[in-house]
């Protein structure tokens, strides 16, 4: 196990190094840089600014400088936002995380429950109904359903706020603040759950159907075990195993923010910020954020491998 871990960690470092180089080059080679977009500047001023920001250096040298700073824990200043990149992360990522964590949790819980029931009652009216509903939800464009819900629930009925995270100008603290945030996040969470539910439910349903046909389930039933026990202890546990792989993928998604949802619901998350900084070629922020997601991706896969081992003793690492 420990040799495995050392090997994996080494691989991770190599992968991250390669990824950072590739990402850096991709960003640097995209046409236009941070200065280009400002068409008000004279050519001389543009050259001066490129000198100040070091944008006139060769790409590899810039990469080296960035790497050196990164090793010292310095991810630089965002050019457009004029703030340290790490401060921007802490300003925005937690808002994205809140939204993602709650909706992911709800998506998984609902998907497991619905998936198990519809697998158990395969081809029943419940199963058919659920599948139709799920396909319908999956095929809705997020901006459409988002705007539609805002129009109905916020503008017309005024039950929920139309966007943002808190009521503008509110000084609420403690429980009142919590209530405010919950009210504001209801709509975006509903949309995210609706969109994410489909694939996951189908995934659990098919896993469960597979497992229910296994010999050991028949054995369990033949032993005279209660159906509930067969279903939740024997079948569900095995059906959930492949889902561990998904957990690894969820990790970066939890922090990555959702561009469209954040935009529609005016949510102060990192997804919006990232998109904007791409348009502006705000290299330090782009690089910092993409590397952050890359690191989470690598950690996520390692985590899911280890979890797999913990959950299933048959797996050897």
């Amino acid at each position, binding site marked *: 196990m420990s040799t495995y871990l050392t090997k994996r960690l080494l691989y991770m470092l190599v*992968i991250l190094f*390669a*990824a950072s180089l*590739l*990402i850096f080059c*991709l960003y640097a080679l*995209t*046409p*236009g*840089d941070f200065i*280009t*977009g400002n*068409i*008000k*500047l*004279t*050519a*001389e*001023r*543009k050259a001066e*600014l490129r000198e*100040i*920001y070091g944008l006139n250096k060769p790409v590899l040298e810039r990469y080296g400088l960035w790497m050196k700073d990164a090793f010292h824990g310095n991810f630089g200043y965002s*050019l*457009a*936002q*004029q*703030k340290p990149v790490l401060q*921007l992360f802490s300003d925005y990522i937690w808002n994205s995380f809140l939204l993602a964590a709650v909706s992911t949790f709800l998506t998984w819980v609902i998907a497991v429950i619905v998936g198990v029931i519809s697998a158990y009652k395969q081809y029943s009216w419940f199963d058919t109904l659920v599948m139709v509903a799920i396909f319908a939800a999956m095929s809705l464009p997020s901006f459409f359903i988002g705007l539609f819900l*805002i*129009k109905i629930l*916020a*503008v017309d009925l005024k039950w929920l*706020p*139309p*966007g*943002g*995270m*808190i009521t*503008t*100008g509110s000084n609420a603290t403690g429980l009142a603040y919590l209530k405010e945030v919950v009210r504001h996040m209801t709509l975006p969470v509903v949309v995210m759950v609706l969109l994410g539910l489909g694939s996951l439910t189908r995934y659990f349903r098919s896993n469960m159907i597979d497992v229910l046909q296994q010999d050991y389930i028949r054995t369990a039933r033949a032993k005279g075990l209660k159906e509930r026990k067969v279903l939740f202890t024997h079948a569900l546990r095995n059906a959930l195993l492949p889902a561990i792989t998904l957990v690894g*993928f969820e990790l*970066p998604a939890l922090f990555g923010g959702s561009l469209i949802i954040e*935009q*529609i619901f*005016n949510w*102060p998350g990192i997804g*919006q910020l990232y*998109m*904007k900084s*791409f*348009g*502006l*070629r705000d290299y330090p922020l782009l690089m910092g954020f*993409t590397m952050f*997601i*890359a690191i989470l*991706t*690598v950690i996520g*896969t390692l985590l899911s491998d280890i979890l797999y081992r913990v959950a299933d003793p048959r797996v050897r690492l």
Partner: protein
Amino acid sequence: MRKSTILLSSLLLVGSLLLTACSNNSNTNNAAATDNSATVTAAADGATGSAASSSPAPVPAGALSEPYTATDLSKLPAVAQNRTDTIIVGLTDPSGAFTPYFQESGYDGNVSSLLYASLVTVDEKGVPAPELAESWDVSEDQLTYTFHLHKDLKFSDGSPLTADDVAFTWTIQYDKAYDGGSSLPTLNVKGGQAYKEGKATTIEGIKVIDPQTISVTLEKPNATALVVLGSNVLSKAYYGKDYKFGQLEYIKKLHEKPLGDGPYKLEKFIPGQEVRLVANENYFKGKPKTEHFIYKTSEGDVWQFLETGEVDYASFSATDENIEKLKALGYVNILPYTPSTYGYMQVNLKHEQLKDKLVRQALMYGLDRQSIYVDATQGAGAIANIPASPISWAYTEEGINPYKYDPEKAKQLLDEAGWAVGANGIREKDGKPFSIHYLGSKSKNTDIFIAVAKENFAALGIDFQPEVFADFNSLVSKVEGGDYDLVSFSTSMLTDPADGFMQFFDGEITDYENPKFLELYNKALATSDIEERKAVYKELYQLFNDELPILFTSYKKTVYAYNGRIQNLSVSPFIGLAGSLPEWTLK
């Protein structure tokens, strides 16, 4: 194996983001123009959609030519009704860099314009007017400007504002580490270059005469200097206490803790959500009438916030549809607005075919600009023919060719220029077919342009090759590479009429060489007398209108809709709402 797939997929993700990324910084200022001919005042009875569609006659552009007053304030949502000392305005994306001269985003500029007052402001025509400086003198040779400050000016913390602060503000913009976008360094203050190169410890041209008086000497006369020099003032005690030549990093730490002298001061900045301001009791014109002011970050559509009463003020494109919808709300006042910008197509003068003035004129006649910019945008636009906005003091229509859509005239000009219709219907000259490679930013208006222009150009016998960019930086770098014939741009806000010619001096357009243009341009800057300048600009506009070194396209039209309870509101095309905000009250 799986690791590499994951890595690959994350890289693919990055790649696809690169492709789909769209930019917000394309210069799509919500520009507008007053339509001089539109005299039809909209029926003031809260006209409904059906009323509009039943009128068969085309509603003239900008059906709203006068402010419209709310009809039924009782419809105001309760949220807005309950606010008694707070006004909320939407703002796309303030980033938190609230120090003037050091901010990258214009939205931060909106915030800092409320936090900092200027020495000299401009009135609704763009004419300089006193603010922190009660008066100024310009020397006979137009080189030395002397500002006389009001007595007892204070920053919001109560500390005094004196000529030393002004000198400090000007000086740091000449620091070699200064990376902001201020145009002050281009004024060539005497001794500025020496300071920048570290050869001098102070700037020779800047002289503090007494705590209320400061003078500055330029190397070359420049009529824009008054407003550029007379901008915001930074406190030397606050922003300058850690200043050493060549080191400005420390200022970044102060961006979120601004110390100004404007009508409001910062109470709290919540990134991505709100900028909360509170009235400044030390403001030199007296404390503003409304205690709290909030800029709410609201990306994209603001309808939902206006409809639910979460914002009090929002701007919209002046389409008939928007105006009808706003009127139907009943509780908003609507203000037609004319931004100080103009739209144009940059012409690649390196390309042989476009060097010919006749060809450029033919393109102007041959494009149905009325359909593209006015009719298709439901009146949210007007046609531009000179490099100035109709609200500028220099604007004129005298001796200006309106280039009314006239395909026959265009064909005739092309024939004259030697472009004859070839075998396949495409014009040719010296065996080369006439083809136009057009670049535009992705937007609805560009789609309209391409659809109409394709037909227009086909009728003229010109092969039209449009290319659309979702990303503004990519577009600009394509332009810099020279691979284009026409590219659409809009100017940023023009304060001085000279700004309307900026693109000929900032390196963007390098191939227009006309001694007459340079002579007139410099002549207009050599004096600060407005009437004299007006006459020179008239000549310049006539020259440009005939020469067409750029093809003029359109002005945009905007309306502001605001909560009917707000009194004393006006919006200046040059300084936005900052000018009237201290007077705003809630009825």
